């Protein structure tokens, strides 16, 4: 009885059956063309590892994320790590200076979530990095100062600067290369 209203089914049918069907056909076509020219596209070697620029810039960004995670870990768990938040924040601020050189060479093909917008809007990208560095220096200052209440808002501001840049220049999780089965 509950299945007696078929009118709602068609879009689902489309997303569940027809769309995968189309994707399958496209993938098969792509596989065929890869075989035909015998290459993987030139940005990954035969073992599927990352192009060196992608590898390096991902290492830089992961380092920043790790320091952010460390700051969060100290604060949310109230760990007694005197001076650590300021050091992590300084490491993030210093790492900000690595980002632009790391991304200077345009590489968008391969296992990366970098959007082409980085190179199209290079000036905006650099401005976002500068904002991030400033937010990280502010946090370092707040964390070494006498006012613990200033730390929370400074972390939030730093997090927002990450998010603002990622929104423009990093592919959303729905489109991430990480979604592909490895």
């Amino acid at each position, binding site marked *: 009885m509950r299945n007696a*209203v078929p009118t709602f089914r068609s879009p*689902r049918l489309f997303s569940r059956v027809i769309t995968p069907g189309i994707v399958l056909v496209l993938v098969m076509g792509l596989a065929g063309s890869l075989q035909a020219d015998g290459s993987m596209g030139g940005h990954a070697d035969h073992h599927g590892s990352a192009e060196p620029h992608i590898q390096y810039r991902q290492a830089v960004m992961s380092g920043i994320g790790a320091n*952010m995670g460390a700051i969060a*870990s100290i604060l949310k768990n109230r760990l007694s790590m005197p001076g650590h938040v300021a050091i992590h924040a300084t490491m993030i601020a210093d790492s900000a200076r690595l980002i632009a050189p790391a991304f200077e060479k345009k590489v968008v093909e391969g296992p990366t979530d970098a959007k082409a917008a980085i190179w199209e809007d290079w000036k905006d990208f650099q401005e976002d990095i500068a904002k991030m560095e400033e937010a990280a220096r502010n946090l370092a200052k707040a964390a070494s100062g006498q006012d613990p209440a200033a730390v929370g808002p400074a972390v939030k501001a730093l997090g927002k600067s990450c998010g603002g840049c990622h929104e423009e220049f990093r592919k959303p999780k729905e489109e991430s290369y990480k979604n592909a089965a490895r």
Partner: protein
Amino acid sequence: MGIAWIVLISVSSNPVLGESGAQPGDVGRGRHVFFATGGCTCHTNLPGEGKDAPLLAGGRGLKTPFGVFYSTNITPDPETGIGDWSDADFMRAMREGLSPDGEHYFPVFPYTSFSGLTDQDLVDLRAYLASLPAIRRENRPPDAPFPFSWRATLAGWKWLNFEPVPLPDAPDRSEAWIRGRYLVTAAAHCGECHTPRTLTGGLDRSMWLAGSREGPEGELAPNITPDPKTGIGRWSVADLVWYLEMGIKPDGDDTQGLMAEVIEHGYSHLPKSDLEAIAVYLKALPAIEHDLRRE
């Protein structure tokens, strides 16, 4: 067929204000309820109009598998908003998905979850919304193919998919869990995005909060059951509270999309006790393994 009539009757006989004994709406308490809903951000067209988008004046396109539906104006403008509604109208809309004229709302509006809100929270929320600036903006019809654009079909949809949120007594549970269940299930309406849907667009309750690839605006809403591999099993209560306050994940990454908005304009303004209650409830859910990235 018998079940259908029972559901229809129970839907249409939901209590409205007057019988409920709720105190008059309070703006301060209502602000709290507003934050618990995530700041009603679907009603502000931030993606389309940016930071200057008129607050709560609607017009935001919500992409669903059934078409694009536009959120409505919920400012107190009497003609294009909800300014001339009574509290009873507001409660009926929130609980039963019916307009003051008796038209069905498209279930992209999560009355399915809000049906679990208490009378008091509803009148308080109404009072808060009424205190905000009125903005004149006409509502926009959906861009959806027939029959999904046709409101009369929704009676059938409700029959298939809508039951007021059940929140049975749970004497064995902690106060935090009970508060967390109320917040997650009714107010914060987490299940509307984080639970996958059935063929007819109803929530698949056997997969409660196990994540969905078809969140509004085409977003992927992650598995938030405590499965260690595919869910939040490795997140502590402190991680979850911090996340809902700051939008920063345990690995230091930030949050994007609708979740970033509901944190910024909603959940991050809740008292810590409420965030802890949400975390306690989520951590106590049955873990469901559901890998969205590889589906």
